[in-house]
């Protein structure tokens, strides 16, 4: 009897493994449908009295997994649970600075890199500055986000001024705030902010995002240079080039005609405008 049972188990065990791999292959890579049963940190806190720190870690891991899963596997990414997950995490552990910083990027970045909801990202950072009033870095992020995502140079400068007053704050915050106020914000200011964020970030999502943003700015510079050459072409020939390839054959432009990720620029002959193509990974709404 025992040996029959052993044989049965030996036969069935590989069937389980085989059928599971077949099922996986059939369904393909997928993100689990995420459900959130508790929507506020206070509800979760009631369930885990004395274990809020651990619960915050669990929710933070879930936030990162949810963001990654939505980004990688979901077609219509709406990141609906992202904000509540970040809220729960930061309510359970108000000192978890990384949740404010990364959470704000996850929320603010334009799709497909994020949820495209910068106002919510800024709200998360504002909560962070309330809970960690001594953190100049969080306040610096808040200032940067006001400028980079909401194009609000005035508020950005004011927040950076506040950050500069905090103990241990970077010396260049005051200068940057002054530049924002005097110039009203330009691409150079954006570049400086992304470069600062890149240099301050550890290896990972934040640094990669900053690299992507710097590449976008470089691509925009390249598009602007191309637009200048288009105008020069017009002055010389009395008409604009029919396409950007014509610039190259005219030898007025020897550089690439694509953005930094290799997608050809979009060119509008009637206006002479050169811009990042909508299908490019570098495209962002203005």
């Amino acid at each position, binding site marked *: 009897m025992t040996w029959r049972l052993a044989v049965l188990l030996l036969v069935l065990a590989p069937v389980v493994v085989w059928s599971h791999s077949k099922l996986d292959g059939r369904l393909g890579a997928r993100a689990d449908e995420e459900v959130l049963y508790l929507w506020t940190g206070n509800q979760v806190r009631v369930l885990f*009295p004395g274990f809020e720190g651990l619960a915050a870690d669990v929710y*933070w891991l879930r936030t990162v997994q949810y963001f990654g899963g939505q980004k990688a596997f979901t077609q219509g990414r709406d990141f609906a649970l992202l904000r509540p997950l970040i809220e729960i995490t930061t309510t359970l552990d108000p000192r978890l600075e990384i949740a404010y910083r*990364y959470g704000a990027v996850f929320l603010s970045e334009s799709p497909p890199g994020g949820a495209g909801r910068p106002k919510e990202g800024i709200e998360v950072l504002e909560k962070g500055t309330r809970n960690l009033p001594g953190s100049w870095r969080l306040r610096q992020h808040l200032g940067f986000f006001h400028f980079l995502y909401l194009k609000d140079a005035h508020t950005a400068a004011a927040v950076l001024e506040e950050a500069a007053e905090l103990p241990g704050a970077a010396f260049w915050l005051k200068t940057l705030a002054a530049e924002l106020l005097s110039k009203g914000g330009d691409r150079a200011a954006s570049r400086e902010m992304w470069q600062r964020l890149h240099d301050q970030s*550890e290896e990972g999502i934040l640094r990669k995002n900053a690299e992507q943003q710097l590449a976008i700015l470089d691509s925009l510079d390249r598009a602007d240079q191309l637009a200048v050459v288009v105008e020069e072409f017009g002055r010389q020939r009395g008409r604009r080039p029919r396409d950007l390839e014509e610039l190259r054959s005219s030898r007025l432009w020897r550089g690439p005609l694509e953005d930094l990720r290799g997608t050809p620029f979009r060119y509008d002959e009637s206006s002479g405008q050169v811009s990042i193509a909508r299908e490019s990974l570098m495209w962002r709404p203005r």
Partner: protein
Amino acid sequence: MGGGLSRVVAVAANTFRETVRERVLYNLVFFAILMTLSGLLVGQLSIRQDEKVLKDIGLAAMDLFGTFIAVFIGVGLVSKEIERRSLYLLLAKPLSRGEFFLGKFAGLVFTLLVNLGVMTGGLYMTLVATGRGADPILLTAIYPIFLGLVIVVAFAMLFSTLTSSTLASILTVGVVVAGRFSDVVRNMRQVLPGAPAWLVDGLYAIIPDFRGLDFKSQVTYGDPVPGDVLLFVSLYAAAYVAVVLGLGLASFRSKDFQ
């Protein structure tokens, strides 16, 4: 006096051996697996938070496992002896009820101390193995966890002298949960302004303040618990345990075993 103490120690040693025989320390195997898996996986799952997560998991496991042991073993310490009728044999010997009761208490407290000590070593080993420092500040949270567990044991023993094991377990868990919400009780009047102050203050004084013994979140961020706070925590726990144990002892002494 010396003879009394040696009898208490003898009962305590016997209780410790008994808990070991009952495989209470097997939870350490689970803890070891938990810490090893955490050490291997957490670094890949969390973003630059592995050290904090490891500390959180380690401290929470100490608190949780310790509480389970304190409640369920604590409740059975006296009641089992009664159910097995071995208590009658023991009390027939030159051993007072007080010595028996305190010995049982001390034995389980020692078991919890050993358990917590091994877990602390495990947490430090995991931290070192994953390239983190053996942060001594953690001890300033582990010590209050231990004091909290001692209070739980005292309650479990008190309730076990008053009622059945099942009800005693439920009551002890109730006290643990209530104690973990002591901050809610303290701030009750903000939510219920009509609640009488004497009731709120009374409840807050009676319920064990496990919230006040919880420094886990603080130490995971590297903030040590100040020495004076640890002193007051020790005084509070010692006084609280003395009161609860005194009540338990009184109840045990007045119990009619006929």
